[in-house]
């Protein structure tokens, strides 16, 4: 069915609006999304302090904690959101609306991005100021490009995961849950990924966050290039490829899984 651009833009704004307004009506949100997330990041800083690690490792942890906000956002407010929508009966309403599923997810992402960015900015600023992190930015445009490409790649990945919920329920939910700590480990959120060995790091590079974090470490810290996995320019190129790949695959996965869900009668199946 041909859907018009205006309706889709309206859908994006509407879905994002609910998130931003909904969150701001909850005062507890300020505590849960700003002050509390810094705690576990700070704990990792103190591990390095207990081990008398070089100062740049504190910066690596703060960067990892900051970017972790976006990974959590992708997992819980994008990928797993279709699970909630399905469970509370919204998914079928979305399905009958004349809008693209990608617009809906983009709306979720935009609204969720507001929350994730608040969390990330707080972790970054509080962490950098409290622990006196020294940044030595080599190239700001490259750093910005890496950040945007990483988020785009993650958005594509989130869409890909969300397509699973067209067919599955708790199986997919638990699958998404499983991606938290293991990805923190494999993507090197709190240490340079090359310490995992070349082939493990290469495998983990399928997750845009791995290359994004590694490139950011290389571009933002004096000791970054020494601990980098591969050249930043190569990582930038690989991120572009991953973005295209994930957006393309997720579009088709959404259509395919929706078709399967309809065929098997699982699209509106709740509490499975």
């Amino acid at each position: 069915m041909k859907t018009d651009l205006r309706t889709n833009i309206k859908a994006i704004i509407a879905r994002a609006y609910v998130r931003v307004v909904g969150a701001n009506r909850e005062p507890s949100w300020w505590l849960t999304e700003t002050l509390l997330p810094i705690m576990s990041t700070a704990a990792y800083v103190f591990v390095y302090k207990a081990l008398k690690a070089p100062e740049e490792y504190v910066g690596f942890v703060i960067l990892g904690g900051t970017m972790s906000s976006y990974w959590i956002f992708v997992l819980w407010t994008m990928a797993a959101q279709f699970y909630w929508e399905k469970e509370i009966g919204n998914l079928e309403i979305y399905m009958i609306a004349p809008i693209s599923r990608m617009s809906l997810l983009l709306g979720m992402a935009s609204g969720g991005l507001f929350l994730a960015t608040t969390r990330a900015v707080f972790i970054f600023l509080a962490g950098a100021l409290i622990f006196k992190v020294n940044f030595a930015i080599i190239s700001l445009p490259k750093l910005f490009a890496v950040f945007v490409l990483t988020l785009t790649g993650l958005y594509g990945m989130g869409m890909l995961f969300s397509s699973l919920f067209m067919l599955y329920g708790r199986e997919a939910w638990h699958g998404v849950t499983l991606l938290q700590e293991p990805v923190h480990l494999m993507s090197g959120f709190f240490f340079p990924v090359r310490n995992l060995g070349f082939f493990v790091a290469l495998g983990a590079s399928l997750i845009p966050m791995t290359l994004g974090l590694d490139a950011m470490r290389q571009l933002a810290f004096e000791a970054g290039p020494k601990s980098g996995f591969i050249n930043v320019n190569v990582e930038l190129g690989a991120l572009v490829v991953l973005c295209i790949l994930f957006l393309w695959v997720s579009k088709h996965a959404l259509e395919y899984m929706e078709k399967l869900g309809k065929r098997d009668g699982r699209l509106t199946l709740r509490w499975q």
Partner: protein
Amino acid sequence: MRILDRTKENIRTIRTAGRLGWAMESNWTDPFLFAIYSIVRPLASSLILVVMYYVVTRGKTGMDLFAYIYVGNAFFMYVINVLFGVSWVIHEDRDHYQMIRYIYISPIRMYYYLFGRGIAKMILTTVAVIITIGFGMLVLKIPVNLLSVNYPLLIFSVAAGIFIITCLGILLAGVSMITAHHSYALTEGMSGLFYLACGAIYPIDILPVWLQYVSKALPLTYWLELVRRSVLGKSVSPTLGGYSDVQLILIMAGTTLVLALFSHWIYRSIEYIARKYGKIDQLTSY
């Protein structure tokens, strides 16, 4: 007779809620996949610290600090999982399954229901802790001698820890009654706070002085020290190392009593507010 009947009733509530919690935790897949799922997350979380340690020390694991970090992190899984298992029930039953109103009108006490729902997580976490410690002993050569572990102290400490965490979980369950579905972040954040302040993965001596005061006010700090002593037989924290086992148990008991009373008061107060303002069965998924 009345007390006996009430006890029987409460045990039945815990048992039924426990069975329900177990079914919800485990019946989404086959037992093999479930077993893999249950051990991957805790192992990954431990391995993050192992890699961090290896990166700095260039592979040296002989230091006492390594065992201290590893064992502390393994037992801290109880905090993350049981806290989540108890407090998330409110959101799950309210927003997700929309059953909380029926639970409230049934002739059971919510406290025991919440505790029962947390049992599945306790069982799973116990398995995860055993596997993590076993992995540490076999692969990472953590110096744990199974013949010299102080088992009575370990069993007592774990039971006390579960009680402390359940009190915290009930406190957060109370808060969840008047907050939206992002109470997930609240539980996660509170776990982070305890992870930071209780010296789960480093001696509390490394913390700034003001944070050490916070640490000393939390029963989980003493609980972690006791489980470490029972497993490793020693402490690397100069501050906590100065206390004997009995002193630690007494301090833990005192701080736990304060926590239990505070948790009860918070839960009851917020529950009243939630019922008064019609928030008890609100839907907040956005």
